[in-house]
């Protein structure tokens, strides 16, 4: 119930936000929304199903390149291109899953890094796709039909819409039998198989859905930034960030990635403004320290920490109530004895 109110409040705030902030802050808000969206997408397979992928940038990049190539080379409308990119990524995820899912734990994570790096190398060498030079999104057709705008505000609505769509998909999955199956696979894969769950199939479903939404996020990035290259949409650093957003906020929770995105993006911008310009790596040091602190002390993220805080408070309240009840009955007994 409390979460429900919180969600509505946040939604209203998000809808009203453009009216109260200026253009440069609006860009940061868009970055938050986009980071949250890929975090939610990653969370589907990494948080709920427990398959920690550190190569998700591969899907992001495929989405970005698919929609951009279709537009640049064949004049295909970006709205169609975006969906196509999502489908292509979901198809690629089949190869991803087939090669990696039989691996456990660390091995799986390493395999995802390797596959993503191969994808990056492919795009770096692929002349037709722009190779290392990258691709530019044409600006000759502005407007909603061609998803190209000269101001930031429409991108804000697009990013918000996409985030809401991704959240809705995640919410629907969480409440359905898929959500239960994913959690079972994450908790106890062998026990899950003993109750009839084909874990390979459901891991794949989680991955494909996740890949689809991640790719759409990549396409949106391309349309907004107008320029993509292997380094901006396919790097391992990007993959780490997608996972980190979810981990920071709370893996396996619906709004965790949103909270994580707000915090992470704020820290990034803050350190960039105050330290980044010197090129001395101070922003990197702060970012890395944050990762370590979260990983060591708060692996369940902010939401996880809040939940355990609430549980401990409830347990303490319970305990004091019991003590009070004991004391009351003891004094009553004493009264009777006397």
């Amino acid at each position, binding site marked *: 119930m409390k979460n429900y109110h919180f969600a509505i409040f946040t939604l209203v705030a998000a809808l009203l936000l453009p009216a109260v902030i200026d253009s440069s802050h609006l860009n940061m808000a868009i970055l938050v929304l986009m980071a949250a969206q890929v975090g939610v997408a990653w969370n589907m397979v990494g948080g709920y199903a427990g398959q920690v992928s550190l190569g998700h940038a591969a899907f992001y990049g495929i989405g970005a390149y698919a929609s951009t190539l279709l537009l640049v080379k064949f004049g295909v409308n970006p709205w169609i291109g975006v969906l196509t990119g999502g489908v292509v990524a979901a198809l690629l995820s089949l190869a991803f899953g087939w090669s990696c899912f039989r*691996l456990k734990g660390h*091995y799986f994570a390493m395999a995802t890094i390797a596959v993503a790096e191969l994808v990056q190398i492919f795009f770096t060498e692929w002349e037709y796709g722009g190779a290392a030079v990258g691709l530019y999104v044409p600006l000759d057709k502005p407007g909603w039909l061609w998803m190209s705008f000269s101001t930031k505000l429409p991108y804000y609505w697009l990013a918000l819409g996409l985030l809401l769509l991704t959240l809705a998909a995640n919410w629907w999955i969480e409440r359905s039998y898929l959500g239960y199956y994913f959690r079972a696979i994450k908790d106890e894969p062998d026990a899950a198989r003993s109750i009839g769950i084909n874990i390979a199939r459901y891991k794949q479903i989680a991955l494909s859905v996740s890949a689809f939404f991640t790719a759409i996020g990549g396409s949106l990035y391309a349309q907004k930034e107008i320029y993509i290259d292997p380094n901006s949409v396919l790097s391992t650093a990007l993959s780490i960030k997608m996972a980190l957003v979810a981990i920071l906020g709370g893996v396996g929770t619906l709004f965790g990635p949103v909270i994580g995105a707000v915090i992470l993006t704020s820290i990034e911008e803050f350190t960039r403004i105050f330290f980044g310009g010197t090129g*001395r790596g101070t922003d990197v040091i702060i970012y890395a320290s944050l990762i*370590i602190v979260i990983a060591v002390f708060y692996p369940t993220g902010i939401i996880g920490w809040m939940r355990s805080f609430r549980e401990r408070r409830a347990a303490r309240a319970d305990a004091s109530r019991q003590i009070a009840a004991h004391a009351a009955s003891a004094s009553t007994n004493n009264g009777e004895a006397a």
Partner: protein
Amino acid sequence: MTTEILLQTLASGILIGLIYALVAIGLTMIFGVMDIVNFAHGEFLMLGMYSSFWLFSLYALDPLLTLPLTVIMLFAFGVLLYRLVIVRIINAPMLSQIFTTFGIMILLRGVAQFFWKSDFRSIENSSVSGTVKLVGIQLGKPQLVAGVGAIVITGLIYFFLNRTRLGAALEATASDKEAARLMGIDSHKMFSLAWGIGAACAGAAGVLLATFFPIFPDVGANFILLAFVVVNLGGFGSVTGAFWAGILVGVIEVMGGLLLGPQYKTAIVLVLFLGVLMFRPQGLMGKA
């Protein structure tokens, strides 16, 4: 392609492979003893390189001379890292372990950049500069010395593990932590030792590399991937496996670069990595 070029390539592949082996031995020891994959391993190598560089630039001390000092410093650093951070995540979920060592990796790179900037450095005119001709093949002296050095250090590690009591205790902890503990072996000390030796191996590899490879904050990135491939191919936890796999990976990488082009060297190694992960995950000689 002449025989000479082929032999040349083979030789340089073996020599660089020996370095990969040395780095990988440290990584495989850590994994073998405590089941943690150290993503920050390349940074021990980087620190070893910088240590050599600064001792050479500031005090004109030759890298080979300062090798023991660097190795000791890296050993201490490895133990320190274990005591401060790693000890807290031994029983943590895998997600925590992965991101902790990943965080350390990024942190060390950032620290290196902060103190020493991103400029490329190199060690010129050390005691091992120049080339030498051996059985008709031209070899760089630093590379040759590095290869020999790697063999020597690997031999020392092997001797330590198989002929000393402390080494036997380490191996025991690696096979069965609980049984070792019942025999009175302190796991905590063994883990510290593993991290110390692991860091020292990578640091030593760094010193050997520094005589001919550029030194910069992110240099670890080049080698961590290769180290993983070697550890995987040789078998997680197997030191002899890492040695032979290192040589093999070095040869494959360099030969592949010759045949397909240098920009594909990494891709070839990655494909090899995925292949081994998928079809023979226990590696050539590994424990599962």
